[in-house]
């Protein structure tokens, strides 16, 4: 218990310069406390990971950050703005973008269209502008299409611009999700198990990709990830959740040797169990 409060206090104290700060977030589902008093922050331009065994509350926490669930306690601050309780589309348009654990693309829209959907909140043209194709609207459409193509090229699937998302290969779909998220011009990018279903080579390439995204698009990245080799290689800081609580936080080496983390993943050994 002591670790938690110490870690919580330190994260809470970081404050202002961070891209995203969550303080004392608690989420209850009926009697079940899915996330208990978790504080957490993503430094500007950092790559941090959220790990933990099954049912630790990682995805729930993610959903609080993106506005899908309203926390019962605690606040979420994006940049300088308190976004606690805002609707998902508002939070998204303020610069929080995400991908999904099980890919959720708009299957019957082309790759370009998928990316353009995410530009919705940055576009202005209204009903009449669209119907009569006014110069402003035409210009905006053209510019967004160009930007979409740029993003597709950036993630390396420029050749599939006119294909329906559902027809893309699995790896390309994952890339398209990232391109779509980047179209929001986010300050924070949340990746929910981005390497699920990838083989080791693909995962390794993915690590470089995340670095490139961070460097070239100036975003801070938060990953939920199960592949420990990816987590250890990509993360600058790792936060570990277990049963809804934060049990550890630190660099990859610290986490690897942290007994509580080992315990959470592998279970208690006999001697340690009796000792407690």
């Amino acid at each position: 218990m002591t670790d938690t409060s110490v870690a919580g206090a330190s994260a809470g104290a970081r404050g202002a310069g961070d891209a995203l700060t969550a303080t004392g977030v608690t989420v209850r589902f009926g009697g079940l406390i899915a996330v208990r008093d978790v504080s957490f922050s993503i430094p500007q331009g950092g790559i941090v990971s959220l790990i933990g065994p099954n049912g630790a509350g990682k995805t729930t926490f993610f959903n609080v950050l993106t506005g899908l669930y309203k926390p019962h306690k605690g606040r979420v601050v994006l940049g300088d703005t308190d976004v606690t309780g805002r609707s998902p589309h508002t939070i998204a348009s303020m610069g929080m973008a995400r991908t999904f654990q099980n890919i959720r693309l708009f299957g019957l829209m082309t790759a370009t269209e998928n990316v353009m959907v995410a530009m919705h909140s940055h576009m202005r043209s209204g009903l009449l502008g669209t119907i009569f194709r006014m110069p402003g609207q035409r210009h905006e459409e053209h510019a967004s299409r160009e930007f979409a193509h740029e993003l597709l090229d950036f993630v390396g699937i420029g050749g599939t611009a006119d294909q329906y998302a559902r027809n893309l290969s699995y790896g390309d779909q994952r890339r398209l999700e990232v391109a779509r998220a980047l179209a929001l011009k986010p300050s924070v990018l949340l990746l929910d198990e981005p390497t699920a279903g990838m083989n080791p080579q693909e995962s390794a390439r993915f690590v470089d990709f995340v670095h490139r995204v961070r460097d070239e698009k100036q975003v801070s990245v938060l990953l939920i990830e199960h592949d420990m080799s990816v987590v250890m290689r990509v993360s600058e800081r790792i936060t570990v959740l277990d049963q809804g609580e934060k049990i550890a936080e630190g660099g990859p080496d610290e986490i690897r040797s942290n007994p509580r983390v080992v315990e959470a993943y592998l279970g208690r050994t006999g001697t340690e169990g009796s000792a407690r």
Partner: protein
Amino acid sequence: MATELAQGRQPAPNAADLGGHHQRRWVLVFAVLALAVYLFYRFLLPNLPDSTQTTFQGWLPLLSVNEALVWVIAAVGLNIVVGYAGLLDLGFVAFWAIGGYTAGWIMSSFFYQVKNGFSIFSTASGQPGIHLNWWLVLLVAGLFCAFCGIIIGAPTLRLKSDYLALVTLGFGEIIPQVFKNGESVFGFNLTNGVKGIAPLDEITVVPGGKSLGPFDLETKYLLFVGIAAFCVFVSLRIREGRLGRAWLAIREDELAASMMGVPLMRSKLAAYAVGAFMGGLAGVVYAVHVNSVFSDQFSFSISIILLAMVVLGGMGNVWGVIVGALLLAWFNSTGLPQFGDWFNGQFNTEVNFPSYNFLIFGSLLVLMMLFRREGFFPETRTRQVLQEPERTGLESVGADLEGVTS
């Protein structure tokens, strides 16, 4: 258009044809057809032998073509709600009714309380009541319906699909009932109850022009085609813009759309309002077509037939919806009774075919759902789903399992 802007990159094998040449071909085909029909009825038909004329007036009278156009306008409107945004609406007749009554109110002598009359470019100026030029009436009714769409939509659009369908079903029933019982709203006669409002003012092509009587079907045909074309134009344009993409995204995956910054309520309300606008236009045009407004005209079956037109034609594809609307409307009003007469005469039977129309519609829908779910002329997109196996359907099994075990 989409493809032009994307030039320079090689289109993938199954590139989506959004707009472009495909679209332009359809426009051309329909424009030529519409003009040909006009020329045929205006110039050719009167010069044909009498027997041919009789056959034609029996099987394809211009009156039923005009009525079919009303259905086209409404179906194109419903297509925006159901086909574009994926919101099932089982009460679209409500907007048709509101549009019709708006026409009744502001282009007839119904409000005789306005003794000296209030008229704007109307054929009936000087008479008591409110008389607006019918183009204005179209605009007013459309906007009023859009407004009603937003009022109805605001509380209901939060519901998920099945519940939304049920609530719209309720509205489709309530609104005609309101009109039916509106004979004395706190002592004020709002709708004239079952007696309805008739006659309406005669319409003109241009303000101050020659007024069109009940037999000027050819000119009315041209006007109705024009209004339908306007609705088609609007649907096509919106589809390619920011709002159209938002609707598609909502139809595909509502949650993901909201996570990508698409405001769900606002976008859905916009779909409702635009659809309702066209429903209102259809209401006015129908009122002009039959020169009256009665509460009995607005039955539940209209909503269902409209839905059948959209589904049969190919949800989301405006051209398919037009074909579906024309076919079903003709079948309902003329085709089936004519076929019945022919059948009974041929086999000396007395089967009342028109009374079986819902049996036939129902069977048709069931057969469509079994054998051609995407409709006769599906969107390029939808054709994909129903004719090709989904790639991720197989490949993501592994990922899903991983999600479960991890």
